Every structure is written in structure tokens, then in C-alpha cells.
């Protein structure tokens, strides 16, 4: 026995050594991949999402046209991932210090701010200023970005969207409905349409956000533009009676069946289709929908029959009808470490030319200045562009200041709010809990 003990101990020791060695191996492997990315980039690599085709098509067109010089020095290379797996991909890449030169910055601003805090995102205000192109950004877009990203310019405004209600002019005329100016008029209009067997609203409950946007816009109209900032600052709770009131109003629309059947299983494209086929009279959406509205193949009611109105006022509310919910789409940002002179050339070319390229080729409105004259595709586009230039103040959307968790919780439960399977107080409580839990 005494002779055998050392063997056993040696075996144990070698096992321990092996385990330690494997740990060391794993650790060095992580370190290894991290050190490579500090070198100057060889490509203008751009990580985009599969769903958004506008930015990558426009950039590719620019790389062959106006930005050819920048592209020759640093060729554009686009890689895409589905939007649902974007956050995971970014976290992995950031953990390995392998972020691309330019990338879609996560589904919630919270993730970008996390990245910025650890020094992975370029300070775009400083960089654009030194490149001399900061004035190429629309001030409204810059202020929206700053409101979202804690007062900093952390993403580029490849999109600039305001939101409101697109409506079917023909259906409104046939049923003798005037454009509603107040919430009560809107509900009355919906009742009138419903009585004539026209579905008043189309909305996607599967995505959830088209429903929570209604909720937040109601809040902005009734409690004023700082309604959700107060929640983010902890000065108010979603469970406060005036907040629950908004949830009750939206739930009320669902209870009366104004969203049609099975709203929980309606996805974004189906909701869009319902509106563009004349099956629903109103569609709350951002102006990115203009691309679909201008497309004759998709739009069966005709672009001339589509109108755009702001979300109506709430009687006695603190908010005003000319405050528009606005956003810059999925934020696109640039890595801090790979931002060198060649990247700078690309960025200044984008800043000078993207606005007109996107509007001309895709009818899409961005937050970059449009430097060459472009004709609008139709009256709705003109109306939206006019609204943007006239808008006095911008407000955000419901989840804009939420954590990723609260965002998911709010959007996955939204359908329940309008189908009646979740009471308004319970919905607000659930979202508030997710917010408090961080």
C-alpha cells in the first residue's frame, strides 16, 4: 500500500497538470485572437442584418460610383446576420476584440452604450468634426441619436424615420370620415369603420412593437414628451395610474376587435399586406413603409390613396400633435480601434453622398443631407418629408430607453394586451418588473 500511494498521487497530479494545461490553452487561445485586430484594417468590413437591404445596396452602389477612391484604398466587404442573432454575434465579436470596421449596433441602444463604455465604439462627433463633415448630418437626426445614446453621437443616421398613421383615403371617403384630430375622434372613426365591416387597424402582434408604439405615443400625447424619460430616471413608474390609463386605452381598441382576428400571429409583412390590399383602413408605422407604399406590385390600393396623419392629440393632455416619434432605424456605428485615415475617407464620402443616393435609388429618407435635387416618388413621400422639416420636437418610442430584457418582455407581451389575455395593469407591471430587474 505504502509503495502504491505515490503512483496514485502522481496520477492525480498529472490529471491536475492536464487540467491546468487545458485551462492555460483556452486562455491563450482567447488572447491570441484578440491581439490581431488592433492592426490597421485591410477592408471596410461592414456587418449588417439580413432584413435591411437598403444600406448595403446603397453602399455597394457608392463603392462603384462616388466613393470609388475610398473603396480602392479600403474595399467594402458586407457580411450579414439575421437581426435576431445580431446581439449575440456582436457580444461574441466584442469579447474577442474582433469587431468589424462598421457594424449594425445591436437591437437596443443599451448594447451600443455598453460597447461604447468599454471603448469599442468610435466617438463619431469628434471624428466627423475633424473630418469636417459633421454639418452633413441633419440636426434633427443628430438630436434623435443623442436622445437615444445618452447625449453622444454613437451611430450614423443611415435612416431617419418619423412615425404616424398611414390611412386609406378611399375607405375614409366612402365612410365619410374626416382625419381625426383627437384620440376620441380616432376611436369614433374606428367604430364607424368596424360597423361597416372594415378592419380599422392592421398591426403585427407577433413583432409586438407596432402595438407598444401606440401605447408610447398615447403616453407622449397625454403626459408630455418626457413621459418615458421619467420612467427611465425612476421618477415615475409604468404602474402609475396615468400610465396604466394609456395601456387601458390601447387594450380597449383590441377588446373591440379593431385589430382584426388573431393579431398575435400576424407578422410585420402580413400587417403591411393587409393595409396595402385595402383590408385595413389605418396602419401605424414609420416612414420606412414608404418604400412598400411606392411599390406598385405591393400596393394594391395605389400610392395616391394613401395619406399620412400624425397620431392624434389626447384631450387635456400635455403633449402636442406636432411632436413626432422619431428614430434612426437600426443604428450603424464604427469600431474605435479600426478608425484610421482610410476609414475616415469612407465615412466622409458616405456623409456627403448617402442622403441623395438612398433617396434617389430607394426612396428612403436618411439623416444625411440631400446634396443633389431628387424628385419625390409620390404625394405621401412629399407629405412625410414636409412633416419632418416642420416637426418641432421629437419623441422616442416605448422601449427606446429600456434594457434589452425589458424590451423583449414588452414586445412579447404586447399581443396579450390587445387580445385580452393580459390585463393592462398586469402588462405594465410585468414590463416595470423587467425594468427594475435591470
Amino acid at each position, binding site marked *: 500500500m505504502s509503495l502504491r500511494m505515490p*503512483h496514485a498521487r502522481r*496520477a492525480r497530479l498529472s490529471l491536475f497538470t492536464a*487540467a491546468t494545461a487545458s485551462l492555460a490553452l483556452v486562455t491563450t487561445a482567447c488572447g491570441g485572437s484578440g491581439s490581431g485586430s488592433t492592426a490597421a484594417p485591410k477592408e471596410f468590413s461592414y456587418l449588417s442584418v439580413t432584413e435591411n437591404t437598403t444600406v448595403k445596396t446603397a453602399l455597394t452602389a457608392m463603392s462603384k460610383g462616388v466613393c470609388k477612391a475610398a473603396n480602392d484604398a479600403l474595399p467594402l466587404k458586407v457580411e450579414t446576420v439575421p437581426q435576431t442573432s445580431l446581439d449575440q454575434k456582436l457580444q461574441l465579436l466584442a469579447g474577442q476584440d474582433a469587431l468589424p470596421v462598421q457594424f449594425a449596433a445591436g437591437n437596443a441602444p443599451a448594447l451600443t452604450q455598453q460597447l461604447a463604455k*468599454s471603448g469599442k465604439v468610435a466617438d463619431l462627433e469628434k471624428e466627423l468634426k475633424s473630418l469636417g463633415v459633421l454639418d452633413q448630418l441633419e440636426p434633427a437626426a443628430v438630436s434623435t441619436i443623442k436622445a437615444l445614446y445618452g447625449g453622444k453621437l454613437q451611430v450614423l443616421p443611415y435612416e431617419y424615420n418619423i412615425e404616424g398613421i398611414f390611412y386609406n383615403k378611399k375607405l375614409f371617403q366612402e365612410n365619410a370620415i374626416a382625419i381625426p384630430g383627437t384620440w376620441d375622434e380616432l376611436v369614433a372613426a374606428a367604430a364607424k369603420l368596424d360597423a361597416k365591416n372594415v378592419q380599422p387597424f392592421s398591426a403585427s402582434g407577433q413583432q409586438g412593437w407596432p402595438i407598444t408604439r401606440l401605447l408610447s405615443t398615447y403616453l407622449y400625447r397625454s403626459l408630455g414628451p418626457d413621459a418615458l424619460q421619467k420612467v427611465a430616471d425612476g421618477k415615475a413608474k409604468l404602474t402609475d395610474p396615468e400610465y396604466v390609463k394609456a395601456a387601458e386605452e390601447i387594450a380597449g381598441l383590441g377588446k373591440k376587435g379593431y385589430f382584426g382576428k388573431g393579431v*398575435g400571429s400576424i407578422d410585420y409583412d402580413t400587417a403591411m399586406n393587409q393595409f396595402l390590399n385595402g383590408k385595413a383602413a389605418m396602419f401605424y408605422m414609420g416612414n420606412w413603409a414608404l418604400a412598400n407604399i411606392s411599390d406598385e406590385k405591393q400596393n394594391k390600393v395605389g400610392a395616391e390613396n394613401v395619406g399620412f396623419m400624425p397620431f392624434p392629440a389626447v384631450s387635456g393632455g400635455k403633449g402636442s400633435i406636432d411632436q413626432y416619434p422619431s428614430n434612426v432605424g437600426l443604428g450603424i456605428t464604427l469600431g474605435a480601434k479600426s478608425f484610421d485615415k482610410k476609414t475616415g475617407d469612407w465615412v466622409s464620402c458616405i456623409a456627403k453622398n448617402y442622403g441623395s443616393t438612398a433617396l434617389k435609388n430607394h426612396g428612403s429618407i436618411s439623416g444625411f443631407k440631400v446634396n443633389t435635387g431628387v424628385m419625390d416618388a409620390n404625394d405621401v413621400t412629399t407629405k412625410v418629408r414636409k412633416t419632418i422639416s416642420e416637426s418641432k420636437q421629437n419623441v422616442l418610442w416605448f422601449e427606446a430607453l429600456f434594457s434589452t430584457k425589458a424590451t423583449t418582455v414588452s414586445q412579447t407581451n404586447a399581443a*396579450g394586451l390587445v387580445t385580452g389575455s393580459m390585463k393592462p395593469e398586469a402588462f405594465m407591471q410585468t414590463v416595470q418588473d423587467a425594468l427594475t430587474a435591470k
Partner: protein
Amino acid sequence: MHRVLGDRRAIAILLGPALLVYSLIMLVPIVWSLGYSFTQGNTIEGFTGNGGANFSRLFEDPAVRDALWFTLTYAALVTVGQVVAGYLLALLYVFFLKRSSALIRTLAFFPVVLPTVAVGLLFQKFFQVAPQTGPVNSLLNAVGLDSIDFFGSAGSAFWVLILMDIWRSMGFYAVLLFAGLVDIPDEVLESARLDGASGLRLIRHIVLPLSLPVLMSSLIFSINGTLKVFDSVVALTNGGPGNGTTPLTLYMFQTSFTYSDYGYGSTIALLLTVVCLLVSLAVYRVSRRDITEG
């Protein structure tokens, strides 16, 4: 032989390589993952220790309670459903269809080879209410009932999920149990019949006890699979509406990778491991007792 196997050095040489590989790919990650349970943070911000905070959070989190309850009821119902349905199918093959069962066997087995995502989409279309009315709701309308939004409430979505998973896997259990049934010697059945046992009595007293071992292994298979259900839930309801059909696995996935809270996600994974361990031990105890009796 005894001399070689009695030598500790020989044991070390023979077991060493396998043990090393096993440790590297199984034990180290498990211990590592356990270590994450005591941290908070993510790959961007880095990890910091937070003691047992994740564990106390685990006990207070209502979402964990919901997910655990969902996982257990789902596992119980689907296990009972698929083993019973599989057993009935197997009895049908052996005693009624006899040698001509090949076609039915193939048909019942067919859903097993279909990808889960395809089955999920199929059932979504089958039970949908909008934009098109699915066959089930058409049927309800035809007999004068209103359409039901099956995926609009957690209760009905749960039952569609149960139905789908039983339908999807009963063919597999039918084949497994069929193998156990054909193993029963014909002489035994013959002599039982001569003694006057037939129909249900034959099944209750002769067939059931003799196929008990294979029934038990089916149960173990089934419980192990259903406690870890992930793909069919994601394909059919994605955990919704709200978190009404979210099992522990999906909650763990969301916490770790969507909310980037790796530490807490790891703690939930640990809970799932403990649950699996406890249930496996329980089934193992019951099955050991039963086999000795049978």
C-alpha cells in the same frame, strides 16, 4: 489478468487517455459553467464575482417558477402521452395488423424524421386563425362554432404544443415498444390463451409485465428528452404569448444570450441539471424495483 488489472499503474495507463479527454470536454466545461453562476457580467463588460446573488435571485424570480412549472407539466404530459400512444400503436401492430403492419408503421414513424421546424410550421398553419383560417378553425366554423385564436393565450398554445410533440414522437416509441412486444415468446401467449386469457386480460397480465423493461427505458428516454425541450417550443410559439410557454431551457437561452446575463443564465442551467438529475434518480429507483418484481 488479475495481476494487470490489480496494478494501479496499468489502470492509470488504460484509463488515463479516456479520462483526460472526458475531463477536458465534459468536466472542465461543467465546472467552468458552475463557476459562472457566481459571477455577473458579459463578454463586453467582463465578469465580476457576485457571491450567491444569482442563487437568491433564482428563488425569487417568478419567471423561473413559471418556467419550471411549465417544464415539469410539459414533461409529465408529453411523456405519458407519447409512451401511451406509442404502446397502443405497438399493440395495434402486433395483435391486430400482425404481419401487414409495415405500411402503418412507416406512416406513424414518418413525423419522427421530419425536422422539428417543419412540424412547428405545419402545426402553426393547421391551428392558425389569421391571416388565413387554418383547417382546425375551418372545421370549428363548419359546425357553427367561432374561430379560436389558439396561439393567443398560453393555455391553448400549451395544448397545441403537447399535441404536436405527442404526434411527432409517438411513432418512435411505437417502434421501440414494438421491438419489446415481438420479443415476447409466442408459446407464452399461446399457453395464456389456452388458459382462457384474451383481450384486455391478456394484455394486463401477460403482455404488460413482459414488456415492462422496454416500457421503462421508453419512459427514461422520454423524460430525459422532454425536460430539455427547446426546438419544438421555439418553432411553434417561441415561448409566447408573453412567456406563457417558456421552458427552463428557453429562459436560460434568453437570459444568457439575449439579455447577455451569462452568470444568471448559468445558474438557471444549473437548476435544470439538478432537476434532470433528481428525476433520473427517481425513475431509476422505480424502474429497478419494478424490474426485480417483473
